């Protein structure tokens, strides 16, 4: 079992892993100093959402080399499913102050949304992508854009083109005091839940039989198939997990912002995609890192009054990375095929 974690974030550069934690802490410290605690927590929260969505992009790319443009919309559908479950099925209208009830509701909300979105993701894979498995690379890409439109239009049909409010179950007033600033419990919950999911994913990929199958499938699909790995099942599980995480991000988004709309997936999807590229597409740890990085850039820009330029900076960074370092911060984990 000790052998498994050697490769969980494999990189062609042996020193990258040793330098990484130091770099992250240095960056976080700097960000905390520059931004102040309020904005720092905001950035972490936003980053957690980006990271959860980015993981889906990077996992799917890692395994079938498809940039799943529909993934941002899967996240959007997740936020609507969460809204629907929370307000219609559980009958919530706003904050719940009864702690056991709150915990129960949130747990049920997460479980149901993740489950529904996992199934939606698997369905999309089965119906839209699997028939094109052997087609030229462009075909599934176009299909992904088509799926994106379908999802947007279905949601628009049912819920209308306006912004929809989502019950914010965790009371916003609840907060703890950290060196003079009030940090909402909601933010802490969002960050903790997201980070827990990311760790669970990392463990799953590095320590389990199915995770191993996912890694080997992304390295050499045909050879894995000849070793007995069921490729179709493995790819579907990848979609299942990626979409489940997008569903979780949808829940988190609803709890945090209290609203959602049918075109949420486009912007956030692009940002999450950028995060995946910055971290090194195909690399799960990199996607999480990229998500947080982008959030810090955006929040940093608005903290200094250049909020409108946040997007521009993020996407300029994307271009810069694509030109000078296309493998991203941590390098693509399917790099050994090239």
């Amino acid at each position, binding site marked *: 079992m*000790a*052998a498994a974690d050697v*490769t969980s974030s494999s990189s062609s550069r042996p020193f990258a892993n040793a330098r990484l934690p130091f770099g992250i802490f240095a960056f976080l410290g700097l960000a905390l100093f520059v931004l102040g605690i309020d904005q720092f927590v905001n950035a972490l929260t936003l980053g957690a959402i980006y990271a959860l969505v980015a993981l889906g992009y990077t996992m799917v790319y890692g395994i079938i080399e498809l940039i799943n443009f529909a993934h941002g919309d899967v996240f959007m559908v997740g936020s609507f499913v969460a809204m629907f479950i929370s307000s219609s099925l559980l009958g919530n209208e706003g904050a719940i102050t009864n702690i056991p009830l709150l915990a129960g509701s949130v747990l049920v909300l997460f479980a149901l949304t993740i489950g529904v979105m996992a*199934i939606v993701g698997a369905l999309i894979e089965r119906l839209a992508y699997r028939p094109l498995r052997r087609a030229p690379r462009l075909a599934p890409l176009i299909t992904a854009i088509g799926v994106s439109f379908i999802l947007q239009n279905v949601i628009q049909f049912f819920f209308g083109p306006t912004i929809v409010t989502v019950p914010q179950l965790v009371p916003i007033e609840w907060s703890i005091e950290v060196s003079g600033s009030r940090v909402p419990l909601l933010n802490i919950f969002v960050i903790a839940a997201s980070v827990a999911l990311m760790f669970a994913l990392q463990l799953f990929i590095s320590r389990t039989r199915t995770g191993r199958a996912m890694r080997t499938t992304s*390295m050499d699909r045909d050879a894995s198939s000849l070793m*007995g*790995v*069921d490729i179709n099942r493995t790819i*579907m599980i990848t979609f299942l997990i990626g979409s489940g995480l997008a569903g979780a991000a949808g829940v988190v988004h609803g709890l945090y912002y209290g609203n959602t709309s049918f075109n949420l997936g486009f912007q956030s999807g692009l940002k999450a995609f950028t995060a995946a590229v910055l971290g090194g597409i195909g690399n799960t740890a990199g996607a999480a890192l990229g998500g947080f990085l982008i959030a810090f850039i955006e929040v940093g820009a608005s903290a200094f009054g250049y909020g409108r330029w946040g997007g521009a900076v993020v996407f300029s960074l994307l271009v810069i990375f694509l030109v000078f370092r296309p493998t991203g911060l941590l390098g693509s984990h399917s790099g*050994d095929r090239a």
Partner: protein
Amino acid sequence: MSAAKGGPMLRARGVTRKFGGLVAVNNVDFEIPRGSISAIIGPNGAGKTTFFNVIAGIYAPTEGTIELDGKPLISPPTGAGREPILLVLPTIPFIALAIYFLMAVGGDTGLVEGVASVAVALLGFVGALLLNIVRPDWYNRLIKRIGVTRPARPNDMVVAGLARTFQNIRLYKSLTTLENILVGMHVHLHAGLLGALFKTRQVREEEAAAEQRARELLAFVDLAGMENELAANLPYGKQRLLEIARAIASRPKLLLLDEPAAGMNPKETEEMTALIRRIRDELGITVLLIEHDMRVVMGISDYITVLDHGEKIAEGLPKAIRTNPKVIEAYLGRGAAAGH
């Protein structure tokens, strides 16, 4: 060859494989006796790699059948289109119902009904999908019982008892040697998705046992102590050994070796030959190999089959093959048959 268990390990009858108009393998009958080391040889372009790939399940034969251990290897995809239809069929009435609901009550007021009926409509499909993911063995049994054939996939061959190595080594280079072996054991590990998530005792025991066996296998191919080495860091010869260990990790009945001694120096070749013998003698695995190095082929094969232009031109004991005029002609060309 043992009469008790009867029949050859592999029997191919009338195997033909065409690529468009090109007949790569033409009507080949072929048997591998149980517990033997057999070889397929032939000049370049003789169709031996194609034949090998047909046996390995990469290409379906255009004609002919292949039996492994008396059981037909999953036949070519005759009913390939039927699996998805099976899944969709039961949902059609529900889809009609959903459309009715949506049209009758409109998008706005009929929201819940609409969503519910679409959900129900997808239920059959989703159910089958989830069953396939969570319990693939149950799913396979189910569709078998209903009588649906699905296209054979290469991974089915591993379940049937075939394992192979590759001519150009295809290890997972950024995994450790131990992990490479564990991938080979994939079909024998049963931890489902849920079991893996919660790390039940059963799963943990299974993993520990698998790791133990992986270490034994590494020792078997003389790679003990290299468990945590990345496959990419092994020297070429050792990578070949690791690939063989990965193949035998799936506990095959028949091991297919694609040029196991390619690119090896004489000493490594000798070790490889000894290893192949030990695989047969100690593990009881029947071995089939393609090999260009005649010393290797003649040295370890019990039986040799010679292909030329897609057809079988000779088969038999090494000694007979060596002196067979047809074989000499195929290798050296007409008129040179007296040479060698």
